[in-house]
């Protein structure tokens, strides 16, 4: 018998898509039965009360969670988000309901052994409810009490060799795409770079010392499956600078209809026979391709590597061999002064261990941002406030037309004195000899 009636939530238990309501109810039942005789460290009916408070929100159209309190584990400033219910008498099981962020493994690959260990820990010391995964990428443990925080951290670090992720004004948990582990488009090993930088910058990740949050995301190619260009302060996007590799036989297999275009992604509708002119050549944003006499020709120097032709004919076209990544910086969501995409800063950099060249760029940016950034100012906002020129100055990078869409349309250049012959010191009397008042 359920503790709280949930007539509104119950309506989300039908339809084809998995129901989170049924799932929470399942956990509530499992805890009530407790077949494994677990000595639950937080209220056994936590899931019942979670459903109860959610039902109240569905009824009233408002949340019942308060601002986070200052809770955490000793020596860290991030990784735990305090959360308290504003109706604790009615729902004592979720009165204290803190979140812990657990740094996910690269590519989100798991063994069942590790997942089951996490489940055992979280069932014992928490609500048993998770997010797989949070928006930034962490495994999110949703709901525990203050006394359990250190215990969970101790068990994670001692028994599972696993650390927390970031929250607050620090380096947020970096995340990556599947990369070379299972994708032929990956131009560098996203997981290796993500892991290396995560380990190198553990201090920045756990101890908030930044003006605001800072995100790293690693996309193996310009398809951008982890959306780095839209949401990372530093987006690392794989690319190449030589020629797309062409298998002419496979090109003609696409043309002849033996291979399905776009890896079979359009099989749900009859789009008619594949037309290479219409579907590839004419859609190329730079018009750098020709298909004549059964031969595909790409003018690679004009190619901007948008991935369309490769996506359409993955068996015929492959990324180049001289690979690296582009670093773009400054993306953020709209709050406050509007959304920003990342801006091109380093068009091409090789990805080679120990990644010193990449780290030089990172650290120069951090030095500037930590010095000049206002409280809660993202890197992209500082860039807007002080200008892209300033970013080039602090990183020591040379201006490059690849960094802009177009040159400025106004001549309001902030010339520096040292750039102008003779400097700014002039004599008004000398001037007046030739120009009357």
């Amino acid at each position, binding site marked *: 018998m359920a503790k709280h009636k949930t007539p509104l939530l119950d309506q989300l238990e*039908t339809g*084809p*898509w998995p*129901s989170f309501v049924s*799932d929470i109810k*399942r*956990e509530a039942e*499992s805890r009530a039965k407790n077949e494994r005789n677990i000595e*639950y*460290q937080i209220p056994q009916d936590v899931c019942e009360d979670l459903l109860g408070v959610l039902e109240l*929100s*569905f009824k009233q159209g*408002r*949340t019942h969670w308060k601002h986070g309190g200052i809770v955490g584990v*000793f020596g860290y400033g991030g990784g735990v988000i305090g959360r308290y219910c504003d109706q604790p008498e009615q729902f004592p099981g979720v009165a204290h309901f803190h979140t812990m962020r657990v740094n996910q*493994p*690269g*590519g989100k*690959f*798991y*063994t069942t052994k590790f*997942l089951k260990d996490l489940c055992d820990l979280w069932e014992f010391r928490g609500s*048993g409810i*998770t*997010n*797989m995964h949070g928006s930034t*990428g962490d495994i999110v443990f*949703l709901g525990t009490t203050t006394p359990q925080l*250190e*215990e969970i951290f101790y068990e994670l*670090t*001692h028994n599972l060799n*696993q650390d927390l992720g970031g929250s607050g004004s620090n380096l947020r948990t970096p995340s990556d795409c599947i990369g070379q582990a299972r994708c*032929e488009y990956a131009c560098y*090993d996203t*997981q290796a770079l993500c*892991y290396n930088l*995560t380990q190198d910058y*553990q201090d920045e990740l756990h101890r908030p010392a930044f003006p605001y949050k800072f995100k790293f995301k690693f996309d193996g190619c310009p*398809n951008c*499956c982890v959306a*780095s*260009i839209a949401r990372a302060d530093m987006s690392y996007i794989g690319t190449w600078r030589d020629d797309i590799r062409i298998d002419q036989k496979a090109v003609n297999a696409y043309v002849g209809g033996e291979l*399905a275009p*776009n*890896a079979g*992604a*359009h*099989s*749900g509708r009859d*789009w008619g026979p594949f037309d290479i002119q219409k*579907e590839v050549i004419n859609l190329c*944003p730079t018009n750098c391709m020709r298909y004549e006499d059964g031969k595909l020709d790409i003018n690679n120097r004009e190619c901007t590597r948008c991935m369309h032709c490769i996506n*359409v004919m993955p068996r015929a076209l*492959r990324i180049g061999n001289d690979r690296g990544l582009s670093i773009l910086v400054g993306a953020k*969501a*709209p*709050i406050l002064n*509007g959304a920003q995409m990342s801006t091109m800063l380093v068009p091409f950099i090789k990805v080679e261990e120990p990644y010193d060249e990449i780290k030089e760029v990172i650290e120069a940016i951090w030095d500037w941002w930590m010095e000049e950034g206002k*409280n809660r100012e993202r890197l992209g906002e500082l860039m807007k406030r002080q200008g892209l020129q300033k970013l080039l100055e602090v990183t020591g990078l040379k201006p490059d037309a690849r960094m802009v869409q177009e040159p400025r349309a106004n001549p309001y250049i902030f010339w520096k004195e040292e750039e102008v012959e003779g400097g700014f010191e002039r004599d008004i009397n000398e001037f007046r000899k030739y120009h009357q008042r």
Partner: protein
Amino acid sequence: MAFISSGYNPDKPMEDRITDIGPKKYDEFYPPIIAKNKGKWLYHEILEPGVLVHVSETGDEVYTVRVGGCRLMSVSHIREICEIADKHCDGHLRFTTRNNIEFMVDSKDKVAPLKEDLLSRKQPGGCYKFPVGGTGAGITNIIHTQGWIHCHTPATDASGPVKAAMDVLFEDFVNMRLPAQLRVSLACCLNMCGAVHCSDIAILGYHRKPPLLDHEYLDKMCEIPLAIAACPTAAIRPAKVDFEGTKVNSVVLKEERCMFCGNCYTMCPSMPLADDVGDGIVIMAGGKVSNRISAPKFSKVVVAFLPNDSPRWPQTTEVIKKIVEAYAKDANKYERLGEWAERIGWERFFEKCELEFTHHLIDDFRDPAYFTWRQTTQFKF
């Protein structure tokens, strides 16, 4: 419920303390076939909705079955995922960026039994536990934020509208009939933990009433200068306010300047915005993150407000369905929703999607607004 210690000694927190070890290393978790073929993949193919094969230059093949998941997930559900992975995949699995789960097997004959097993598992109300799909030119899982289940600033729920929307869009999760992939995302307020601002269709929670002012507590709970500095439109100023006969330090609000962003509430809990009538959903459309063909784009606001008609948000799902159907009918092959809207023109977009264009949709927020107005005589009747 007796307290059981992990071994942690609160009197000596630094004793045996382990910190700064980071995540587990990715390659501990690779299935053997992935470890063996990393960096050697030649090509992939979507064999049917939800089923992919990747072929390596070594000749190896890995078959992936992708299933949708609620990102809100119980340990009982995760254990069931593990049971499936133990049975079919030698104890390995992965999650995608969009909260799908991928089961990988190393030969084709293992696919059908895996798929059959996945689809046979249902929840008590008949929902699939593991719907197979989410590939190619269709709609994959909706990424989303916490909503009413755990967040303090939401203007709508997250898991609820997502469940409602995915039920309505389910046919396109298990099919690949669209001109290109279509990504739907939800953020329950404009903080956008979910970064939905570059999605083909974004569901965004938004407030429409200025913050309440809890004068009795405001100065005690908040740093007033921080609350003032948090306001992007300078709508908040400090003031001595009469509270039950005494003057208290607090703030006053220029309501006509408020854009309902909620940033003040983030800094000051005594300024709550939440309201059952004021809060609801904004629908945005036409964004993307891929660099394919055209540059990444922001989503544009196409419906200014829809109410929180819980538990199934029928007005929201109806609008989304209309946009999807208009796009499916009219766009060219490979054309993303935003590319289609730009090609036909936004005036046509509203016509074809049967959406009303209201003054709310004209940008009036600072400089970028001007660049969204039309400075040409080219338009369509």
